[in-house]
């Protein structure tokens, strides 16, 4: 079979996917880019060309920078916690003990729970009047009175981060576990014969195998955390006093609550740009990590 004919055939097989992707991603993205340069409203006017006006207004508004700070804090804190707890959990269930198989099976549960169910569950746990957290803390004598965990600006974001960490650390754990199982037993045994302590073993024997897959987990989780919407919307809608308002929530408010489609579009593209830059940096790091592991 000639090369050009098989390439043509490959293109034909690819065509349905490309048509669908153009319809539901390519065209909307192009239109969002156009909208971001107009003052279009969601309903009514199609908008006048305003150049970079939306971007300039957005980047000079204090609400953009405070929202960006909230999002970054959410992303850094929840992803760090997920990586740390995830790796520790993976190291644990990679040991041999009774009940290990059961514990591994349990790991999938938080991750399989739908995001909205997880958010509703934690909203109930944090409930100021009847919530399980308040009840537990007072019954254990750790607190004197009930608190409004999601209603206080000082605790709301931390409460969200904990709920997000609980749901997502298992993904990191399962990816790390798969990587740990790929470490050859002989190498581990050889390092022990050579007298390497547990920390040296982790650093020089285990970590090279973990680095690549962990970078993948880090990329996936960071992208998700920067785009976060569902858990925030269900638990706090960005409140109290906008202390949990993330970038995606701000776009929703701009474009759909206030109907400023143009302004919302410019902000959405700023988020896309941030995520793309982050992912590119990560991609370079992954290539390095994958290279050093082999």
């Amino acid at each position: 079979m000639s090369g050009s004919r098989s390439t043509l055939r490959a293109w034909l097989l690819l065509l349905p996917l490309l048509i669908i992707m153009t319809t539901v991603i390519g065209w909307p993205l192009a239109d969002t880019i156009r909208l971001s340069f107009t003052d279009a409203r969601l309903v009514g006017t199609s908008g006048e060309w305003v150049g970079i006006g939306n971007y300039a207004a957005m980047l000079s508004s204090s609400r953009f920078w405070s929202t960006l700070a909230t999002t970054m804090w959410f992303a850094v804190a929840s992803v760090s916690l997920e990586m740390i707890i995830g790796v520790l959990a993976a190291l644990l269930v990679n040991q041999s003990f009774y009940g290990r198989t059961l514990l591994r099976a349990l790991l999938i549960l938080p991750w399989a729970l739908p995001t909205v169910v997880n958010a509703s569950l934690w909203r109930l746990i944090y409930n100021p009047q009847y919530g399980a957290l308040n009840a537990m803390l007072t019954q254990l004598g750790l607190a004197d009175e009930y608190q409004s965990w999601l209603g206080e600006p000082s605790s709301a974001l931390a409460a969200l981060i904990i709920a997000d960490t609980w749901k997502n650390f298992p993904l990191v754990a399962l990816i790390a576990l798969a990587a740990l199982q790929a470490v050859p037993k002989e190498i581990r045994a050889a390092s022990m014969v050579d007298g390497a302590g547990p920390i040296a073993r982790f650093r020089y024997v285990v970590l090279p195998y973990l680095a690549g897959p962990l970078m993948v987990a880090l990329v996936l989780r960071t992208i998700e955390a920067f785009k976060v919407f569902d858990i925030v919307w269900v638990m706090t809608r960005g409140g109290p006093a906008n202390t949990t308002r993330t970038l995606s929530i701000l776009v929703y408010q701009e474009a759909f609550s206030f109907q400023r489609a143009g302004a919302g579009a410019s902000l959405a593209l700023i988020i896309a740009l941030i995520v793309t830059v982050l992912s590119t940096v990560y991609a370079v790091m992954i290539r390095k990590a994958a290279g050093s592991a082999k």
Partner: protein
Amino acid sequence: MTERRSVSYSIFLYLCAIVLAGFILAPILWLLAMSLSPADQLITKPLQWWPETVDWSRYRHLLSRADNSAGEAFTSALANSVTVSAMAAVASLLVAVPAAWAVSRTPSLGWSLAMVIMTYMLPPVALAVPLYMGLAQLNLLNSVHGLALVYLSILAPFTTWLMKSGFDGIPAEIEAAAAIDGARLSQTLRIITLPLSAPVIATSVLFAFLLAWDEFFYALLFTSDQRSKTLTVAIADLAGGRVTDYGLIATAGVLAALPPLVLGTLLQRALISGLTSGGVKG
């Protein structure tokens, strides 16, 4: 085991295992307990942690179809979620199988798949306004078909990616051998490739179903009543509304979580290997 462990190390290990199991299970067991506790027991102080009498009435209530009841809203949302997720998963399968095979056998097209996967970085909010306006023009707002179409933007890249790594695992030599024996391409695919990749295809389509089942943002924007509202939106409505019985929210949560919990447990291994292998090679 080549290592011999000291007693104190074993104790430490089991303590850690108990802490981890407790951390994972406590919220889930509490969700279950809330759904089965009598309503007045959930608002007592000090809180009673486990139902004295098991109360199944909320499950009956939510799964009944009495007019204008919470059950009617819930069962229609359940039906909508099944319809939308199944339609979107099957449609994504139909476009992903040929595309994934083509890219797997024609490495020079790899960049096109890379582009499709790159779209994962786009936040849904970056597509939402044009999609909203487009669906409005096509009269597809508040419709299960419109929502399923939009879900392809999430499902199709994901299933293509998973299936491509599946096809990569089937040696092209087997297909070449069949071609030498005189099989046409369509025969080769039908007799050799598709049966061999059936496990991967099944896994991909189930995961696509779960992704759609979990989706909230587009469903929140593009649905407005019982004709198309999905479970995630119905549960968010319950959680954010003035529901006086918290157990009802918990019950809806348990019911919505059952399919993914069952499928997730069954598919755990397949997903993790797909994620790690596909991810590093990229």
